[in-house]
């Protein structure tokens, strides 16, 4: 898994590539914890995300909860498979997917 960060002021865009599973989820969690302080607009780019497991969903949930308090969060470029997972798990209801 690769994480690419792009920050402009309080706007942060994070592109996640590869598999976001039990093994890699803690890495993304640590990265986000470290960088979303003071961010008001977070964009998660999943264009190159191949797979997301429940551990990955948990990280998304946590971030979403934090961002609910300090700004907004958008998930974009979600492919069909990830989109299905979001749908099955009901995450479509709590995430802003573009």
């Amino acid at each position, binding site marked *: 898994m690769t994480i690419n960060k792009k920050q402009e002021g309080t706007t942060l865009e994070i592109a996640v590539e590869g598999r976001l599973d*039990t093994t890699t989820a803690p890495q993304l969690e640590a990265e986000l914890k470290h960088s979303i302080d003071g961010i008001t607009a977070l964009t998660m780019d999943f264009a190159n995300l191949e797979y997301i497991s429940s*551990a990955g969903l948990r990280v998304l949930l946590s971030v979403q909860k934090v961002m609910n308090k300090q700004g907004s969060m958008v998930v974009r470029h979600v492919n069909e498979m990830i989109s299905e997972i979001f*749908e099955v*798990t009901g995450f479509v209801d*709590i995430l802003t997917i573009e």
Partner: protein
Amino acid sequence: MNDANKPMVPLEKKVFRAILRLLLVTLLVVGAVIVFQLLQLRRGMITANVETGQEVESISSQAMEEMMEENLLRLTAEKASAADKVFSDLGQTVSILAKNAEYLYENDAKIDGVEVHLPDRKNGDALDVYVTYSDKADQSSKKFQTEQELLGNLQWDLLAVTSEHEEVNSDYFAAESGFMLQADNVYQEQFDDEGNLLTFEAKERPWYQGAVEANGLYFTEPTHDASTGDFAVMCSIPVYDRKELKGVAGAGMYLTSLKETVSEAVIGESGSACLLDGNGNVIFSTRNSGELSAGAEDLANALDTTKGDLKQFLIEAVGGTQAVSLTAVDGENAYVSCSPLGTVGWTLISVLPEDIVTAPTQSLTGALATKNDEMLQQSDRRFLTAFITLLVAVVVLMLVANLVSKRLSSRLTQPIVALTDKVREIEGDNLSFTWDQHTNDEIDVLANSFGTMTKRIEQYIADITAITAEKERIGAELSVATQIQADMLPCIFPAFPEREDFDIYASMCPAKEVGGDFYDFFLMDDDHLVMVMADVSGKGVPAALFMVISKTIINNQAQFSDSPKQILETANNLLQENNAEDMFVTVWLGILEISTGKLKAVNAGHEYPVIRGTDGKFEILKDKHGMVLGTIPGLKYREYDAEIEEGGCLFLYTDGVAEATDAKNELYGTERMLEALNRDPLANPQQLLVNVRADIDAFVGDAPQFDDITMMAMERKKQ
């Protein structure tokens, strides 16, 4: 890599050998250099000596030759001059006699005549002046008597000459008219045996005729005097009065003194000399035989007895040259020098054998060579001594080196040996290592490092022991936990052996010791079966703990309500409390009315259920989905109805099935799962699970199991 077959060579021996080798090579190199230098020096000395000898010989012999030639020539010239003086003196004497005679003739008118007596036998051999006559003389003529008496004045001169000059034995004046005045002591010869006075024909004598012919000073050829054994020479000069020949004055001389002069021209013992007359006749010679020797009786002519270079040299010598030449005399190389006697045209020859000339040079070079040989021998002895000394030094040094290197190597390696022994002591559990030597070098550092290392190892062993114990404890606990978790789930199959109307089978296989998946089923009443399939986010102990809470809450709620919607909504609210870690759980919960097959269900973020209808084919039921449980409070869930036909089957699973991954990271997927189910769709629930599991395993291959794999199948049996 160690060669096990090779015996160990102790370090001490190695160091010892290395030092010894180094010393040996050094000694050999130094020795070789010294020997080489000595040999070079010796060769140089020999070359220098030989060159010196040759040079000395060359210079010496050349110098000797030049000196010898010069000396020989000078000596010959001196002696020749001395010999010549005898003749010139005689000539001078005879000249005076002739001048006196001429004076008498010129002044005949003024000078009174003096009588000269006839030879008197009674006088014996006393010196006397007397007159003799020719047979043709006209003794009676007045003119003859007057002339004889005029010339009688010459008698004292004649006497003076013989008495003053030792070598002159006789002098005389012979008149053309027939008388002869003579001064000597041999007048007995003028008488015959009977005592009668003999006549003497002076004009017939060679000295008379020669002088007249020469019209000046004349020397006769040497004549051999048989009585004395000496050679005699006569010198004569014609006397004129007003161009008229009046007579001849002369003197005879023995060459006794010349013999001495010639012998004085001899150099050394082997040198020789000889005197040749104008024709090459040998007058005197110190040589007794062979070339350049005098004849025994008659005159030997040197030109006749010699040949080749010597003859050529003699011809030139007789011709009047002064020269020196190296030529063979009697087959022996000799320096031959010649110098003329100007007055008589004779030649003095001096011979010096070459041996005498070269002998000093040879003796000098010989001495030099001997000296050189001595020096060489001496230097050879020194070289030998030096060589032996060197050899002894090498041997001694080697012995010393042997001793020193042994001690040195032992001293160098002793700490290493000690260290090795100490290290050897470390065996098994005994890791204690103490170093009490202080070599203050790398070995010290090594030993101390080793000490530190053993301490650390001890520490690590202690740590590892503790960690292992801890791990074992955790492992044991986890295995208990696994068992507890397994026991929490309905695990006795067949679960409802008394029921003929349905069959249910489930399995959970956690990826780790404990998992986050769970299933549950129980009968609410005789006709209502509650089925739960859930998946907690994450894996391992956190997921397991959350799973326990989730299962308990859901199970509890199901006791109070027959509405899946209500059960999950309440459970959601309960779960999201104190859920700081944002754990969540996906849950499918359904309540089946067994008698009718009517199913009320809620899907909270869980996988789609799969249902097999009467057509005998499993198909995914795309049901309504809600949000996962435990995230946001107050969530509302939608409940839906479905029907399991008689003979139909419900298959529930977690994402561990659909998302099982092979080595190429390819997901197993629901399509493959459906295929696996439909390969034998009418199999009983347990067999269905086994089939799917086998298919997953075949797909995944050697890739590790990522997620918990949990499945449940419920068949509503045909009555």
